[in-house]
């Protein structure tokens, strides 16, 4: 076996080495970042599979009292190295999952099920123990509590969630962990007219919440800075709403970050008590047929843009419902279906919502001059306080509807007296404009643009830019000659005007044509001019010279030069 064959075999073995290495020694390691944590702190579950990339987590763990975050990963890493003439390969897959305890206690996290190379593996062999202890220091320096949370509400009834938290520590960073933020099943956030908060604090590491700072409060004789996170929610379905404990984390700055060193923080945690809210359905008993879903303690007001209107004119009736209720979600009354509005025509409805107010504007057209008022607009509202359906109605609005046929008004008849315009009795003899055909017009448009483009390209290619100064002078030469001849009062001026004309037409300076022998010039051209034309031209030049060089310098007949110029232009000069 020669040396070249041996070298080739070695390379083949070297290439096979990583494959064999990767297929050996698959190991799975599942571990917690810390076995002991303070309540409110966060830890991580790390899942590491070594020796293969074909692995997946079958089922993430679930333990009561622990909130598991989403599974981050897989993160795949691969490494090859030459060691002692051998190639070794290593591949690994890793996932991470955050864990946040919600109570103090001992927890057992069961082994995690993974599928590795098609086989189900459970790791670690024993359940992982986690001990969660109270952050006593945190409870001393920080607090978080829910204020005046209702224990029960009705479906559709808004309720406030008032979270107060604070610390007696000076400098640090604030983090809030709210399990029900930013959305919670069974509730909708309702916008209120409350001013925006003074700070924006991070919530759940991913969101931000607007928070208001309240006046400092004394707790155990120590002044605390107090913050308020207030939100209004609306229960959307009956059942029990679970609000898990909220965590307030304050990271006190021990040493600030600099360019050369990372900062050091000491974390304190405080947790609120979890709570429940029972959501009751709106009772069927006593529910009016025309109840449109309004729940709350609502009052109503009305406003009109005018109260004196002609028959057929428009009155804008704006009805507002105020108060603590689901103002955004109920259906506004349909005036067309309400008794009392038979004599009104409803032309349009504009519906809008402003924090605690629902505002609906109806465009009403009174159709009878007998109308004296806009009737009340009633609406049934379920009151959670009295647990009954309450009818809220606007006050009637006195209006005056003038008949436009009133003699006092002196207006033309309208309203009920309106009728159709008569039939058109005479057959129309006009044919109107016959269609031309859209296709033909489109074709003409395209043709015009195409011909325009072609024409301007050809003209510019063969004759140059028609807007160039030389081309403009050439076109205006005859006109300028006529003008110059009209004002010239000597033969020398006429001679100069003729020279200018020729210069403009030929693109030469006017001086080039003073004293030029036109016969000689014509012969030098490719196509000489006609003899009679040259004779006239020479005669004009001779007459001009004779007159100009005489003492009188009398002008000659200008029409001769104009005729000559026209003849030259006609020859394409």
């Amino acid at each position, binding site marked *: 076996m020669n040396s070249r064959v041996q070298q080739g075999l070695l390379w083949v073995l070297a290439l096979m080495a990583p494959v064999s290495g990767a297929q050996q020694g698959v190991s799975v390691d599942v571990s917690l970042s810390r076995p002991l944590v303070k309540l409110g702190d966060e830890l991580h579950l790390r899942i590491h599979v070594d020796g293969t990339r074909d692995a997946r987590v079958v089922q993430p763990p679930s333990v009561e009292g622990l909130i598991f975050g989403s599974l981050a990963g897989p993160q795949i890493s691969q490494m090859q190295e030459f060691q002692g003439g051998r190639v070794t390969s290593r591949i690994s897959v890793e996932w991470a999952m955050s864990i946040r305890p919600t109570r103090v206690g001992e927890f057992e996290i069961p082994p995690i099920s993974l599928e590795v190379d098609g086989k189900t593996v459970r790791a670690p062999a024993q359940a992982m123990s986690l001990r969660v202890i109270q952050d006593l220091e945190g409870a001393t320096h920080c607090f978080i509590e829910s204020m005046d949370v209702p224990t029960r509400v009705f479906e559709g009834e808004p309720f406030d969630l008032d979270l107060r938290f604070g610390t007696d520590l000076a400098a640090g960073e604030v983090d809030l962990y709210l399990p029900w933020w930013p959305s919670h099943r069974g509730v909708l956030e309702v916008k209120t007219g409350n001013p925006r908060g003074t700070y924006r604090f991070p919530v759940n590491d991913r969101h931000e919440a607007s928070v208001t700072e309240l006046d400092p409060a004394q707790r155990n004789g120590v002044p605390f800075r107090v913050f308020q996170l207030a939100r209004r929610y609306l229960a959307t379905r009956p059942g029990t709403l679970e609000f898990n404990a909220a965590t307030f984390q304050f990271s006190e700055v021990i040493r600030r970050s600099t360019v050369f060193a990372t900062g050091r923080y000491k974390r304190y945690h405080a947790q609120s008590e979890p709570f429940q809210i029972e959501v009751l359905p709106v009772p069927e008993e006593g529910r009016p047929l025309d109840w449109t879903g309004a729940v709350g303690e609502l009052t109503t007001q009305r406003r009109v843009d005018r109260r004196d209107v002609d028959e057929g004119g428009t009155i804008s009736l704006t009805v507002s419902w105020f108060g603590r209720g689901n103002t955004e979600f109920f259906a506004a009354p349909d005036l*067309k279906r309400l008794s009392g509005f038979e004599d009104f*025509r409803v*032309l*349009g409805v504009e519906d809008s919502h402003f924090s605690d107010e629902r505002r609906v504007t109806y465009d009403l057209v009174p159709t009878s001059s007998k109308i004296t008022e806009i009737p009340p607009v009633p609406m049934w509202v379920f009151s959670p306080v009295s647990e009954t359906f309450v009818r809220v109605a606007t006050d009637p609005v006195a209006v005056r509807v003038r008949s436009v046929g009133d003699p006092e008004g002196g207006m033309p008849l309208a309203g009920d007296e*309106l*009728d*159709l*315009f*008569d*039939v*058109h*009795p005479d*057959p*129309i*003899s*006009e*044919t*109107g*404009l*016959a*269609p*031309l*055909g*859209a296709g*033909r*017009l489109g074709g*003409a*448009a395209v*043709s*015009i*643009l195409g*011909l*325009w483009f072609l*024409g*301007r390209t050809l*003209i*510019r290619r063969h004759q140059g*830019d*028609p*807007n160039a100064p030389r081309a*403009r002078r050439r076109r205006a030469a005859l006109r300028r000659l006529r003008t110059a001849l009209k004002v010239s009062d000597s033969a020398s001026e006429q001679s100069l005007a003729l020279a200018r004309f020729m210069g403009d037409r030929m693109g030469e300076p006017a001086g080039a044509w003073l004293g030029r022998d036109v016969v000689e010039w014509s012969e030098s051209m490719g196509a000489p001019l006609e003899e009679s034309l040259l004779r006239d031209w020479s005669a004009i030049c001779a007459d001009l010279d004779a007159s100009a060089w005489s003492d009188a310098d009398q002008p000659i007949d200008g029409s001769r030069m104009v005729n000559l110029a026209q003849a030259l232009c006609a020859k394409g000069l």
Partner: protein
Amino acid sequence: MIFLLTLIGLSSLPLQEAPRSLDQSALAAYRDGNPVAASTLWSQALETATSEQERGRLCYNLGNAAYRRGEVVQAVAWYHAALRYTPRDGDLWANLEFCRAEAELDPADRGDLTDSFQRLLSSLTRGESEWLWACALVFLAVAATGESLRGSALWRRLFVGALMVQLFCAGPLLWHLVHDGQDTWMVTALDGCGGHSEPSDEAKQLAHFEAGAVLEELDQLPDWVKLADSQGRGLWVRTKDAFSLVR
């Protein structure tokens, strides 16, 4: 280029008036308070009329007759049909809005920006729209000729202006090109009508169309027409409950 335009082949359709006797009989019946007979006679005249103006007039008269019969929504439908032929007829618009108000329908022209723009676009007949664009094309041809021969700033501006005029003048024709091909129907049953999944009364009713709703035709069978609802579904409606606006 102007010569090219002359080659377009302009032609006018011959005037075909409704037979005068039918029209006069219908008018006499209408004046005698017999709108049913007037409707029948004007309908017959409409079948033979080919002039757009005359068809518009007959549709208008049929709308009046329908109103006198007490069929207000059908009168609205006839006026809408007439609008295709005589879109600038003031009497027609007045009667249309009057009948829509009587039928408690929204005005055909609410006066807002959208409706005003739509009314502006539809204020010309198809023929007028095409002639308007033809005039604009003549202007474009002149401006294009001047720009190619002279190339001065004035001609250039005229040419750009002519191009912009094209956009404005082609608008009504584009509106007609989009809308004229649509066979639209109006629901004329007073209480509205049901949209069925199949052309049968036993078929499931999937939607309810209010009176005055205008829907596009997808298919037609004897006594039934398939109309597209707002979600684009094709639903079958009895032809007696709807009215074709293409007359």
